[in-house]
């Protein structure tokens, strides 16, 4: 069997970005949480906020570092494996990517050092400000990277000159049709992901009877946030879906597992898609519900994939199953959030060991939903890199052979399988140590200190 450089390059991209996205999914939310905690500490002066913030800041430092390291790999992928795409779309997407890099770079060079190592070295308002700026900066990074991705999904503001995309209107490029929906849906997903991690860690600390006061605060905060943002996410997801139906109807057809156009459209709960025969086997369907959910009317029409030529259809299985996984996880999240509030309302939250245990189990669910959602949207937009205009098969570097990419993919797999478990084990170690009393905080700042009097060095925050 010949090794296909296009398929292997796609696998490689999926591998490196899936691991990378886990870290922003966590750090965007966590930095916002830390900023809130720092704000609470600044305005109330209560030590509990200071302890919780310090606890999560240590974990944030590791996650952010891993995010930077795995992020350095990403821009080079555009050149190594997707050079024709880089040549064709570079004029439009490269400044957006560069702004993302600049923001992260800027943050790392400035406020991150103050946040991580400056607790005792700068006044509380400055530390709060640094935390706020880090949270704001990670949001800006999300803004630019999702603008880039959205432009590839729903291109706008460009003109085509000799097969290359040239910018015409930067505002239209950045605020392209799918961008606002994607941005809100993603950022909210990142917040939910983090809230579930905080919930799980808090529950674990309570069960171990470690720093119980702090841990209860974490659980309360997480539950209060989740009861708002999980329902919000369902609404945002629905809006994002309506937008996709308008601009990428083939993706919706793949998600719904719909090959034939039927009016009104049933909702396929489950089935085994068969792309070759263009049919859904063993389908379990509910009549009319597809129309209602997707078009918000009882007899709206969802176009089936057969309306498109065979070479313009996305594969069905991955978006179909990944979407169902994402929605399933969302339902579990909603149930957990509601149950938590009910238990609190009846005053039985802290006695319900089963629920605390459940909170631990669902802690990583946000990551599952993020990856599933990402797979849905990325596989669903195939076979295009720039939707409807540039094919994935025409985007790959022409010089690459299947053997080249097999080797590179194997190396990426090997290195990530060493790096991630090590990093996760390290963060787990920080969790196990738990929140500490302020006095227990080490005075040393990171890095080799010069032989200056200690005060001189200690006044300065170290660079990360």
């Amino acid at each position, binding site marked *: 069997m010949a090794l296909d450089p296009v398929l292997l390059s796609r696998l490689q991209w999926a591998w490196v970005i899936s691991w990378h996205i886990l870290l922003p999914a966590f750090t965007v939310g966590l930095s916002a949480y830390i900023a809130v905690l720092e704000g609470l500490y600044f305005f109330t002066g209560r030590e509990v906020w200071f302890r919780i913030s310090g606890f999560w800041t240590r974990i944030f430092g*590791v996650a952010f*570092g891993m995010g*930077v*390291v*795995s*992020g*350095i*790999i990403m*821009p*080079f992928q*555009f*050149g*190594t*494996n997707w*050079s*024709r795409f*880089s*040549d064709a779309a*570079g*004029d*439009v997407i*490269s*400044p957006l*990517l*560069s*702004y993302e*890099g*600049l923001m992260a*770079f*800027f943050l790392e*060079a*400035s406020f991150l050092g103050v946040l991580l190592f400056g607790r005792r070295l700068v006044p509380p308002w400055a530390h709060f400000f640094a935390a706020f700026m880090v949270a704001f900066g990670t949001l800006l990074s999300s803004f630019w990277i999702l603008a880039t991705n959205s432009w590839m999904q729903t291109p706008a503001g460009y003109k085509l000159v000799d097969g290359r995309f040239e*910018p015409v209107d*930067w505002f239209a490029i950045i605020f392209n049709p799918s961008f606002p929906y994607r941005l809100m849906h993603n950022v909210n997903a990142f917040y939910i992901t983090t809230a579930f991690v905080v919930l799980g860690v808090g529950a674990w600390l309570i069960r171990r009877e470690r720093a119980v006061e702090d841990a209860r605060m974490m659980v309360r905060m997480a539950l209060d946030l989740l009861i708002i943002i999980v329902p919000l996410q369902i609404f945002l997801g629905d809006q994002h879906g309506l937008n996709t139906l308008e601009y990428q109807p083939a993706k919706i057809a793949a998600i719904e597992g719909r090959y034939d156009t039927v009016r009104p459209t049933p909702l396929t709960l489950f089935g085994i898609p068969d792309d070759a025969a263009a049919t859904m086997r063993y389908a379990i369907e509910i009549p009319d519900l597809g129309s209602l959910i997707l078009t918000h009317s009882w007899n709206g029409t969802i176009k089936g994939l057969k309306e498109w030529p065979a070479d313009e259809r996305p594969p069905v299985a991955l978006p179909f199953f990944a979407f169902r996984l994402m929605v399933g996880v969302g339902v579990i999240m909603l149930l957990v959030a509601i149950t938590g509030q009910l238990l609190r309302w009846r005053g039985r939250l802290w006695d319900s060991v089963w629920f605390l245990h459940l909170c631990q189990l669902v802690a990583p669910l946000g990551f599952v939903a993020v990856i599933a959602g990402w797979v849905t949207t990325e596989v669903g937009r195939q076979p295009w890199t720039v939707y409807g205009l540039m094919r994935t098969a025409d985007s790959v*570097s022409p*010089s*690459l*052979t299947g053997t*080249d990419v097999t*080797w*590179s993919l194997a*190396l990426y797999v090997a*290195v990530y399988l060493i*790096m991630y478990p*090590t*990093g996760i084990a*390290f963060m787990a170690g920080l969790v196990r140590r738990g929140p500490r009393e302020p006095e227990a905080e080490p005075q*040393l700042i*990171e*890095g*080799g*200190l*010069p*032989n*200056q009097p200690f005060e001189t*060095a200690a006044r*300065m925050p*170290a*660079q*990360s």
Partner: protein
Amino acid sequence: MVLDLVPLWTALLALAVFYYVVFDGFDLGVGMLYGLLPDEAARRTAMNSIAPIWDGNETWLVFGGLGLLTAFPLAFAIIIPAVYFPILIMLLALVFRGVAFEFRFKHPAARRFWDGAFCGGSLVATFAQGVVLGSFIAGFKVDGRHFAGSSLDWVAPFPLAIGLALMFGYSLLGAAWLILKTQGDLQSWARRAGQVCLIAVLAAILAVSLWTPATNADIARRWFSWPDIAFLAPVPIITALIAAGEWYALRSRHELLPFLAAIGLFLMSFIGIAVSLWPMIVPYHYTLWQAASSPSTQAFLLIGTLLLLPVILMYTAWSYWVFRGKVSEAAGYH
């Protein structure tokens, strides 16, 4: 009439690349010398000397890569696939090296492994960067707007030789950094190591200076035709003077001079390469202007760059100021 931003972007990219080469160069150099250091105390001190600053240095690589993509996307699209494996190996080596920094201190039991990862990662990353540079100078097979060679074109004497040369070059920077930041036995050790590296670096500079004009008629014409030779003669003359100064500095009691002279040698080599290749960005197919992105693209990113870059530079300067002076073994990384 739209303002031509190509010279400005060329200057910005040149700055980013040079900054990266010097600053990550010295900490990669320290990483390579690390494997040769006599004892654990020296290794610890060496690592402490770069611990606070290495990752700030590394981010310039991203800035360089993204800057190339934004300002000269055609160059990015041709050059990066041509050096597919060197880039891959460099990235993975840098990952390993970065992770080693953290875990060496966290897991004493696995220290030998992470020591190896740190030293080996530095060595492999440096070699790969040299191969990229060598391939760049040697030029690429290009068909239209694509790289037309194979992913193994870099396996040729010239790129591999440059890879080797850069290992000595970064080690010279690393040794000079250790002279600046340490004292006693370790400093004396670094002076001796620096002298060995300097001899190798000078041999490499001489070899490349003869090799490239001998194999490339355009480069030979640029350097040796009248009146260019009169304008360009200062380049080799100043290089020789700096080399002599470096030799003196390594053998004297100067502490800062070896580092400055090492940067000087890199700067002169950088200028030498720029003179040879100007105005090519994809040697020998596309000029800077032919490979440039649209003026609108260049202008859009320039705004943010000019806004954020000075802040980043000021903060960087400040953090070097904070960590000035000698490091000791005792001041642990964590």
